[in-house]
């Protein structure tokens, strides 16, 4: 069994890659993809912790089965995937709207609210 620390290191590396891309890239679609990378890093952490801690967190969630591992981390991941889907839909809508008005998709050329 791979220890949880290795999953933590992997998730940190993936989050760092996504954060670096988010801060250094200028294309809006690439920014959206980097956000998906960061969300996936957190999801890996949630599932890895669920494997270790699931039994203790919500044992009382099940009436009959006593030794069933609680899937609270996995349910949080499902919730986060739903949020990511909604975010991708809204984000791509905004990107297409910006592109229709400004003919660009670079973040630093969108300066309507500046000054």
């Amino acid at each position: 069994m791979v220890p949880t620390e290795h999953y933590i290191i992997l998730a940190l590396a993936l989050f760092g890659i996504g954060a670096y891309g988010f801060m250094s890239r200028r294309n809006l679609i690439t920014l959206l993809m980097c956000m998906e990378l960061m969300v996936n890093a957190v999801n890996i952490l949630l599932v890895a912790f669920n494997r270790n801690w699931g039994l203790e967190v919500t044992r009382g969630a099940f009436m009959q089965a006593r030794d069933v591992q609680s899937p609270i981390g996995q349910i949080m991941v499902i919730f986060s995937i739903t949020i990511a889907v909604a975010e991708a839909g809204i984000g791509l809508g905004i990107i297409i709207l910006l592109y229709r008005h400004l003919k660009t998709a670079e973040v630093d050329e969108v300066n309507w609210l500046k000054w």
Partner: protein
Amino acid sequence: MLLTPEVFHFYLWGGIILVGGLGVVFSRRVIYSAFSLILSLFGVSALYVLLTAPFLAAVQVLLYIGGIAVLILFAVIVAQQKGGGILYNTQPHSPWALLVVLVLMISMGRILTSIQWPVASVEGRTMYNLQISQIIPQARGEEMLTPQTNTYVIGLSLSRTYVMIFELMSVILLVAMIGAIIYVRKEEGESGSD
């Protein structure tokens, strides 16, 4: 650590995830970034299998790769017909971003790895490892229930304990769908030139 198949696949798919993530960040064309994102998401799905969450692995492939990645690809394709400005990335040239990320990762890594995470006992916890016969209550002289696979447990708790989260997800998806339609819809009297 012994090179068991689990360890081997962890490093294999972990490397694939990191290579895909680097491809997303450093690709010159946006379409290559999207394909690298698909590679990385598929690696995450394989890690879910290793983490004994097969339902999440299926959801990851269906929703992330089949939904989000294809949506991004469609956006790239739609924008491609209107001109080339959206298609190319400039090379990242931001040492400050690198510095911030390095500080963040080193500090978070030191914090997260210095904590002694409590490890629960392994007894009775092998349910996800396809050894269902060990945890079927009949084996302990209790009443026989439905075999508790991962999907069964997730569905049970989504409809019993965490039903509020389930309803909230539906509302969020509905609001996001209506919002996206209203965003992209053309206004009254707006010219339909593009």
